[in-house]
């Protein structure tokens, strides 16, 4: 009965989210705001992966900007080549200005849309898997892993700034078309938003399945007692690599959507600061839950836009304060706070009623007890 109810609630949750994202938002929001929401959805896609790797797997992934950047740059390269081809040029506009007459060798495969899409999926996955095996097999964890992943983000950002063939610190920008659709057309920009919304629902569904599967239970076990898991006959490294790789894949896809939606991808989206910014929303929303990271990421990004439009300089302080308060006093994030309040309310109203224990999809995953 409860399982049926839980499943029904899940579908209802997905249904409501779909109605809000596909039905309400496009009607209520202006094209500009909708496109802004599309950007936030990209951050939310990254956040879902971080929730899995950090919240459930205990890996403090401080370098998701690397995979976000890889996806974004690969998509950006394809878009630039496609634009150049439409104009009949050999090389993208920024290369012409720099005096480059021939497409660099590593750009060439990205002329193919199929190759680009495959690479966006496969390259970050392969890199994360290789990196994960190298790191986790050697039992690098905790702060060392966090520092390592952050160093990687810094390194990639520095590398990109120095590369004239990827636009240096300006990155890639001024995309005119997206797989043949002109980006000036509001309808096409709306389509990009819908793609981002669809991808977000998909990654949430994937992570939900992972969290509820035996693998999800195992991942929590690895987070809480890696050595114990080892003595049960598992190699924890393999279990962690899967979550880390999935998180990297999501970040890459998010980056690939970010580039056309926002219109640029630059080293400033890759380095340490954006990598930490990804984390803030996840922490505030509640990293161990399924929807906490999504709502946290969207909420923080939304608040940032709203506040910085009015008080440009104060937002940074507000964000920092929020982060400190949440990490210091509500380690489980706002989702954890919700569960806490619910429990208190339940404790007050005598005989605890049967319902509401499985509750809505955003709180039921707290503590891995579902």
């Amino acid at each position, binding site marked *: 009965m409860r399982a049926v109810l839980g499943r029904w609630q899940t579908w209802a949750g997905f249904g409501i989210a779909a109605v809000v994202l596909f039905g309400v938002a496009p009607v209520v929001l202006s094209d500009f705001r909708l496109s802004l929401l599309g950007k936030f959805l990209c951050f939310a896609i990254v956040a879902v992966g971080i929730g899995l790797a950090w919240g459930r797997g205990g890996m403090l992934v401080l370098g998701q900007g690397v995979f976000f950047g890889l996806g974004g740059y690969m998509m950006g390269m394809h878009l630039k080549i496609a634009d150049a081809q439409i104009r009949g040029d050999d090389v993208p506009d920024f290369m012409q200005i720099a005096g480059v007459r021939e497409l660099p060798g590593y750009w060439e495969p990205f002329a193919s849309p199929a190759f680009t899409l495959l690479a966006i999926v496969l390259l970050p996955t392969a890199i994360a898997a290789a990196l994960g095996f190298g790191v986790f097999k050697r039992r690098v964890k905790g702060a060392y892993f966090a520092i390592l992943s952050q160093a990687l983000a810094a390194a990639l950002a520095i590398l990109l700034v120095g590369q004239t063939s990827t636009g240096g610190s300006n990155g890639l920008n001024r995309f005119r078309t997206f797989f043949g659709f002109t980006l000036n057309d509001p309808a096409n920009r709306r389509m990009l938003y819908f793609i981002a919304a669809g991808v977000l629902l998909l990654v949430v569904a994937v992570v939900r*399945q*992972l969290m*509820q*599967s*035996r*693998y999800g*239970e*195992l991942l*929590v*076990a690895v987070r*809480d*007692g890696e*050595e*114990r*898991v*080892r*003595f*049960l*006959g*598992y*190699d924890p490294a393999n279990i962690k690599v899967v979550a880390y790789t999935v998180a990297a894949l999501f970040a890459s896809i998010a980056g690939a959507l970010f580039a056309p939606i926002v219109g640029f991808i630059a080293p400033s989206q890759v380095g340490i600061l954006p990598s930490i910014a990804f984390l803030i929303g996840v922490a505030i929303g509640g990293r161990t839950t399924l929807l906490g990271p999504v709502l946290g990421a969207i909420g923080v990004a939304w608040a940032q836009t709203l506040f910085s439009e009015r008080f440009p300089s104060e937002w940074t302080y507000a964000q920092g304060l929020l982060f400190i308060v949440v990490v210091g006093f509500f380690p489980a994030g706002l989702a954890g706070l919700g569960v806490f309040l619910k429990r208190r309310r339940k404790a007050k109203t005598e005989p605890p009623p049967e319902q509401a224990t499985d509750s809505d999809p955003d709180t039921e995953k707290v*503590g*891995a*007890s579902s």
Partner: protein
Amino acid sequence: MTEVKASAAGKEPIEGGNVGMGTHYLEVRGLTVDFDGFKAVSNVDLTLFQGDLRFLIGPNGAGKTTVIDAITGLVAASGSVNKSGVELLGKKVHQIARSGVGRTFQTASVFEQLTVLQNLDIAAGAGRSAWTLLRRRNGVLPAIEQAMHTIGLTHLADKPAGVLAHGQKQWLEIGMLLVQNADVLLLDEPVAGMSTEEREETGNLLRRIGAERTVVVVEHDMDFMRAFATSVTVLARGQVIAEGSVAEVQANPKVQEVYLGTAAAGADGIELVEENS
């Protein structure tokens, strides 16, 4: 706690094992653990047969836990650990675990955020395919059902392990070893911190599960040892100084010396020479 059924019915662990020829065994030869020149364990020989409930005793720092660490691959060691024909030394921790050697730790280390059932399900699943792992757990495996019955936690199946009492956590750990299909169980002070009743129940549990397996218990509690051991190995300063039945070991002057300083020091302190009740 309930009676164990099936093939173990009527069988009790006895010294030297209860199976006879063709039995499973764990043979430790010349086990030496060297921590930068300090030999925590030196040249330890142990032969354990299925159906033997062996207690490993000795004063603090005798190397009891280190022996278990070495067998399970946690610390590097030289010598040989042979489990029914398979050499374990040099293998990785999870490979040794998969070949049927399970252990517990001095502090109960269950996964507190997960339920009793989830704990057991993870313990039972080391050989699962990726496909099985990616799907939801449906129902309860018969082996897990039986293990919960054996350790007496069936009614707590859906409770998070973190809320269990100390003794129950230790039983859950033992249950995890059972579903892990370990036939060599190495238990590090399983009754430390337990109440008298819990000790009694744990001892009975060990005797029940020990009938079909090889169980090694590291223990400080001499009463517990006397009540439940079928054989005893005494370690001191990293070496085996005596081995045999409880009575033999108690009568051994070397053991008395280690425990009491000198053989003549009297029967106070650890009361090792007192007759078993």
